[in-house]
């Protein structure tokens, strides 16, 4: 209840903030103070609500439906904290929390820079208010009580002390299919409990728990990162709108750049943390599956990165001669970054992707769907509306021609390539709305050439000078990088024998970017270190791309059966399954596989267990990580069979099977003379005619089935000379198929110890480490750049 009051107050204060800032912008003298106080009330209320939810989770207050749905009492503290954002309501609250905190910094930042504050904070408050509307008690509040709508709670989660309550019997339901029993928690029951002095959090003593896939360190920090990035994308939106409102387009670039840089750094890192989680947990062996939910956060990132490059051109040209280039591009890109964040939210949370994505949230209902659409349209209308409104002015004042051989044009073209990539991902991701889906190839084949162009432009743009470059100068400066990359690519190509021409090109273009940036970075190291940012970030992206090429083009994988104690050679490794042991208090099982390569022996232990959460088999891969390659082992199944040498096979009419040195042919069924018994359900006998061939001899034997009152009974047949006994396991005369088991007469009494077989998918992923290293280096570059630009923004 109190949590909902906090959220409602925050919402009211948010609306008041927008109004007060608007009046301040309109010239009222005394409203700024109110606006600030009101904003702080919003911030404090959201923080208080977050603290309250966290407290409810940590103290297991299952009277809140959200806490019941996503957490449980047996989770360690770290994971308990992460259940805060395991569902829609909590993750909206987390987004709001980061938004208000960032807003406090933004308020301070804008108040020190001219007349920015009212305009920027007004727009920014609209985006916070949007989140608070989504969080209100009628839509998606995490503070709604479990009894507000009738909810079925598993009997296991109820305090057994109260199960004998006579009044409770009317609320018990059973599901014969799963043999589960539920208590329906509703207003009526709540009233009854209240009358009996039973507190609800004492009545429900266990929650549904957290999806085991999310019980992972990376999943604890991935959502906070992502939402910080989302929150920061509304900052660049606010700056762009503020510029349009005032019809003044010079200063906002400098002021917004550090925000855009930081936001995109955090968002990019957040996205790739998700990739790292997928690689380490999901077991399909990759880090990016082009899943709609992954994609929908990638699209705004690509647009944001494009905006950084064109914003840099505008800043440079203003510093140089006061001409502002790419003004329209910058406004549109900054607006689109946030609009696409909202669109991404709509896709993943409206239920519209339902079947298309593994991770999309469950259907939240029509109201939420409608509100998300309203907001999406609102933010598009505000942004695009203002641009159209100012279009004439913008075209008159900011139209320039760029030379072909200029850094400006190269940066612009690079941004266009990024935008093209974003459009492709957006189209593929939105396809399910129209009942279509695209295959993974769609993304791969389209993004590959774009990545090649981006790599080349990445190198070229740095060799090209601002405004104009002589063509002979261009060759002189790029000679070293060009030839080195050519040589490197040729070497890699020769050794790997990869046959995909596009991958070779991408390899070349990433190497080119790497050499150009490396060369410049080295020469700067002694000079202005704070100028290193871009070069470091570009080296990061080049390393990342090289890693993508290596893993995408050169990975090998194979499914193998590992019999306990038996060595298996695969990809130059020697694998031995050595047995399994229970871990985590017997909840899971680790299957140990020792891996020998040369003289080093290491052990990986993939895990399998039945999760109580969803009652199904969960598999966790284990990885032998290395700089040059990873050895990835994903468990598939484990069988303990009393391995007999008696194979079972299904045979169709006329099919042959060889057992030891006997060739067995299934000739035909021997049907009863009188078919009437078979037709009328009486007793009958069907034989299976088998032709044996061994040592040049031929023999016919006939195992058969007879119907009895207890169902069908099967009789084996044997041949002493062929040392063979054949059992029928099953037959289907209408399909003309029979399932037989063969055994040897002389070895019948051999005791064979059970065989333990672990089936795994093992793969070698060359240089996947470069993917992660690349991301880290890129983030480092962003940090340097953001630092430098924040220093410049004060001027």
């Amino acid at each position: 209840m109190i949590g909902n009051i906090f959220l409602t107050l925050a919402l009211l204060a948010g609306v008041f903030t927008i109004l007060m800032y608007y009046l301040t912008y309109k010239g009222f003298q005394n409203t700024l103070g109110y606006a600030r106080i009101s904003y702080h009330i919003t911030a404090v209320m959201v923080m208080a609500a977050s603290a309250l939810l966290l407290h409810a989770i940590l103290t297991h207050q299952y009277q809140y439906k959200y806490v019941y749905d996503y957490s449980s009492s047996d989770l360690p503290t770290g994971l308990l904290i992460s259940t805060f954002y395991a569902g829609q309501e909590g993750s909206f609250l987390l987004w709001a929390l980061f938004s208000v905190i960032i807003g406090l910094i933004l308020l301070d930042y804008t108040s020190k820079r001219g007349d920015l504050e009212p305009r920027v904070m007004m727009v920014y408050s609209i985006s916070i208010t949007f989140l608070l509307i989504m969080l209100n008690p009628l839509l998606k509040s995490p503070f709604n009580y479990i009894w507000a709508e009738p909810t079925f709670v598993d009997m296991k989660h109820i305090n057994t002390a109260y199960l004998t309550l006579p009044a409770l019997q009317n609320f018990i339901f059973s599901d014969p299919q799963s043999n589960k029993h539920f208590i329906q928690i509703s207003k009526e029951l709540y009233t009854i409990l209240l009358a009996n002095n039973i507190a609800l959090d004492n009545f429900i003593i266990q929650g549904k728990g957290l999806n085991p896939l999310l019980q992972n360190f990376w999943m604890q920090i991935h959502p906070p990162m992502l939402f910080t990035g989302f929150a920061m994308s509304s900052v660049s939106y606010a700056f762009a709108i503020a510029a349009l409102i005032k019809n003044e387009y010079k200063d906002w670039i400098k002021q917004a750049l550090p925000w855009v840089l930081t936001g995109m750094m955090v968002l990019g890192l957040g996205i790739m943390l998700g990739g790292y989680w997928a690689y380490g947990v999901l077991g399909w062996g990759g880090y990016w599956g082009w899943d709609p939910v992954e994609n929908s956060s990638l699209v705004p990132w690509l647009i944001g990165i494009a905006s950084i490059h064109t914003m840099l051109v505008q800043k440079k040209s203003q510093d140089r001669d006061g001409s502002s280039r790419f003004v329209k591009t910058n406004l549109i890109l900054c607006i689109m970054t946030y609009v696409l964040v909202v669109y991404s939210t709509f896709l993943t949370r409206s239920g519209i992707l339902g079947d298309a994505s593994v991770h999309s949230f469950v259907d939240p209902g029509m109201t939420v769907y409608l509100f998300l659409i309203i907001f999406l349209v609102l933010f598009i209308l505000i942004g695009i509306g203002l641009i159209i409104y100012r279009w004439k002015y913008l075209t008159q004042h900011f139209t320039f021609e760029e030379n072909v051989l200029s850094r400006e044009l190269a940066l612009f073209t690079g941004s266009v390539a990024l935008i093209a990539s974003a459009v492709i991902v957006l189209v593929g991701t939105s396809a399910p709305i129209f009942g279509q889906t695209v295959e993974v190839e769609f993304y791969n084949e389209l993004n590959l050439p774009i990545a090649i162009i981006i790599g080349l432009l990445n190198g070229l743009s740095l060799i090209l000078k601002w405004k104009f470059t002589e063509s002979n100068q261009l060759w002189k400066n790029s000679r070293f990088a060009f030839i080195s990359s050519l040589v490197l690519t040729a070497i890699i190509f020769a050794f790997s024998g990869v046959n995909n021409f596009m991958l070779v090109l991408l390899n070349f273009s990433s190497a080119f970017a790497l050499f150009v940036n490396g060369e410049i970075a080295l020469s700067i190291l002694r000079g202005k270190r704070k100028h290193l940012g871009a070069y470091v970030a570009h080296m990061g992206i080049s390393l990342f791309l090289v890693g993508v090429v290596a893993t995408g083009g050169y990975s090998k994988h194979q499914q193998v059966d590992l019999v306990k104690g038996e060595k298996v050679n695969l990809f130059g490794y020697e694998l031995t399954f050595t047995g399994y042991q229970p871990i985590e208090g017997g909840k899971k099982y680790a299957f140990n596989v020792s891996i020998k390569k040369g003289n080093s022996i290491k052990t990986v232990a993939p895990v399998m267990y039945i999760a109580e959460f969803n009652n199904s088999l969960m598999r966790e891969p284990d990885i032998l990580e290395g700089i040059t390659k990873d050895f990835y082992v994903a468990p598939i199944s484990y069988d303990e069979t009393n391995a007999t040498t008696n194979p079972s096979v299904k045979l169709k009419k006329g099919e042959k099977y060889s057992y030891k040195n006997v060739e067995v042919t299934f000739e035909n069924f021997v049907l009863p003379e009188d078919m009437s018994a078979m037709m009328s359900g009486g007793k009958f006998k069907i034989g299976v005619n088998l032709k044996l061939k061994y040592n040049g001899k031929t023999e016919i034997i006939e195992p058969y089935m007879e119907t009895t009152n207890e169902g069908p009974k099967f009789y084996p047949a044997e041949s002493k000379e062929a040392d063979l006994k054949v059992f029928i396991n099953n037959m289907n005369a209408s399909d003309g198929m029979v399932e037989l088991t063969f055994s040897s007469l002389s070895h019948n009494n051999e005791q064979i110890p059970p065989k333990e077989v672990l089936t795994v998918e093992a793969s070698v992923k060359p240089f996947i480490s470069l993917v992660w290293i690349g991301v880290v280096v890129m983030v480092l570059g962003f940090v340097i750049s953001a630092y430098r630009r924040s220093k410049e923004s004060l001027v």
Partner: protein
Amino acid sequence: MKNKYIFGGAIIVIFLGFMIYLFTQTNVQYENNFVKVIQSGKTVKATGTWLRERNYEYDNQNKIFSFYIKDDNGNIMKVVYHGMIPNNFESSTSVVVTGKYSNGVFQATDILTKCPSKYQEQAAQKARS
């Protein structure tokens, strides 16, 4: 101005064309009517529910997983998938299989199971009725 449009425009036009072409090549439609799935013979994403009564089969030797699904109109078809049983298959409420129908069975290349958290409530409601 002109150069901007030439370079930017070229990229956009080329990739838009390429994208539309690839979209028509790789797009796969959702289909919840198995009669259409069986007739079309094209790659589709068929959505239905797993027929629990007929259980599923897993051929350990060849790693072939097969089961039956039915659509809303009660049409039933057999699905054959070369690979392992997806996690949480048993608790799935609906199944999306990607592939095409040939030789009397639906040859799946991908299986997606949906296990809404509302499952328990639905189950319980069924129990009431």
